């Protein structure tokens, strides 16, 4: 066993988890509530999979914000990919993107109807295929937060072949966190910031949360002990009346992030306003390929105009799930009309969508 594997066992140590839970209990306020919001599908997975909510006192609540980069891609951008696929362009995408509903069906529907849609594990794989089939036109649906955007940047800057372009749907997390603070009745008391987004962007982009909004903010890793520690650190701050930015995940997150990745992103993209499914338009939250790379921007190459799409289907409560206002169980369709096998909303499609995570874990626990 590598020492990392050994460490990860320590990060799951039940005794340590119990000890932290005790500390949280001791510090939790006697009156009122502490509501902590995370913004990462992997955090939600850790929390539900390991049943961490059951270790917390009743008045310490952890809610899931918009942490699934696939779920928040607006229908209009899925429609663009579907349109291209129907036109005969080979659309490559991550597996999670395949079933995300557009206004009129998903990429999977297009594929079933005969379009050439292929799943790739990495953007480099998509480029590889494009090089092998030079007489076909290829598009990569580039979905993901700051963790994923650098890989798109590397390839966009690396002289892609002429038959290749990117349909970018990258989004940035801190602007979405800031938007959540404006949702009046959400009343968040602290943020758990996503560790792998932070591995790239570092700590600085979160500084405004404690400074301007007096919001305790803790960058956390993804093992159960990481998440419990983050909850403990936030509850401690709340009990002391402080608001600080802390890093629970220094084994991965450096204060400066990954400067090389940031430089690549900056070279490849400009930051613009972007639409988020279920949330709406968020200023400075989307990445667009720079003018110098416009040959590789599918929207420019194929002269597409982003239209309005149908983001939320009738009866689906994704827009409330995405901002953490309701739990999946509170959606009348959850595990009835909407299941992992027959998803209705985007939150049930992606393995990181809150509804999907709950379907796979909470349903089993009862």
């Amino acid at each position, binding site marked *: 066993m590598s*020492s*990392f594997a050994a460490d990860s066992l320590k990060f799951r140590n039940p005794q340590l988890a119990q000890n932290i839970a005790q500390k949280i209990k001791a510090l939790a306020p006697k009156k009122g509530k502490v509501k902590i919001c995370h913004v990462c599908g992997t955090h939600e997975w850790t929390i539900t999979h390991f049943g961490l909510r059951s270790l917390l006192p009743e008045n310490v609540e952890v809610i899931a914000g918009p942490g699934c980069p696939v779920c928040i891609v607006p229908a209009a951008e899925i429609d663009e990919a579907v349109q291209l696929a129907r036109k005969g362009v080979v659309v490559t995408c991550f597996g999670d993107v395949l079933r995300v509903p557009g206004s009129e069906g998903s990429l999977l529907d297009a594929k079933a109807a005969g379009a050439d849609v292929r799943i790739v594990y*990495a*953007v480099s794989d998509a480029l590889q295929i494009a090089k092998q089939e030079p007489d076909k036109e290829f598009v990569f649906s580039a979905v993901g937060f700051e963790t994923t955007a*650098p890989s798109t940047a590397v390839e966009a800057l690396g002289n892609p072949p002429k038959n290749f372009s990117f349909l970018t749907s990258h989004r940035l997390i801190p602007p979405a966190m800031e938007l959540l603070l404006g949702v009046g009745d959400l009343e968040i008391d602290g943020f758990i910031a996503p560790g792998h987004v932070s591995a790239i962007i570092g700590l600085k982009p979160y500084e405004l949360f404690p400074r301007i909004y007096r919001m305790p903010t803790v960058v956390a890793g993804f093992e159960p002990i990481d998440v419990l520690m983050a909850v*403990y650190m936030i509850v401690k701050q709340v009990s002391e009346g402080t608001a600080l930015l802390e890093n629970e995940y*220094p*084994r991965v997150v450096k204060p400066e992030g*990954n400067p090389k990745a940031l430089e690549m992103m900056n070279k490849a993209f400009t930051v613009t306003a972007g639409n988020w499914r279920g949330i709406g338009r968020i200023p400075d939250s989307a990445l667009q390929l720079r003018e110098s790379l416009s040959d590789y921007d599918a929207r420019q190459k194929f002269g597409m105009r982003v239209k309005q799409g149908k983001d939320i289907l009738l009866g689906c409560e994704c827009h409330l799930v995405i901002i953490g206002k309701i739990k999946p169980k509170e959606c009348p369709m959850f595990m009835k009309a909407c299941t992992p096998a027959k998803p209705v909303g985007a939150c049930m499609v992606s393995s990181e969508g809150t509804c999907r995570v709950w379907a796979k874990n909470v349903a089993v626990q009862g």
Partner: protein
Amino acid sequence: MCLAIPAKIMSLSGDKANVDFGQGVLREVNVSLVDAKVGDYVLVHAGYAIQTLEEKEALETLSLWNDILAAGE
């Protein structure tokens, strides 16, 4: 989707590295976003190493927990 997994660099050639995810699972990943050498641990996300890891830091995290928890006694 932001899932990232530690792996050890077994060999390097240009921007590509062969990494070991443990238990003999090998894969080629792109390492142009990090400065890493053979034997280093990196965190891999969707085929790209996004950060280097140091074992020392991994252990420091654990002692950080112990400190924090002890301080709260």
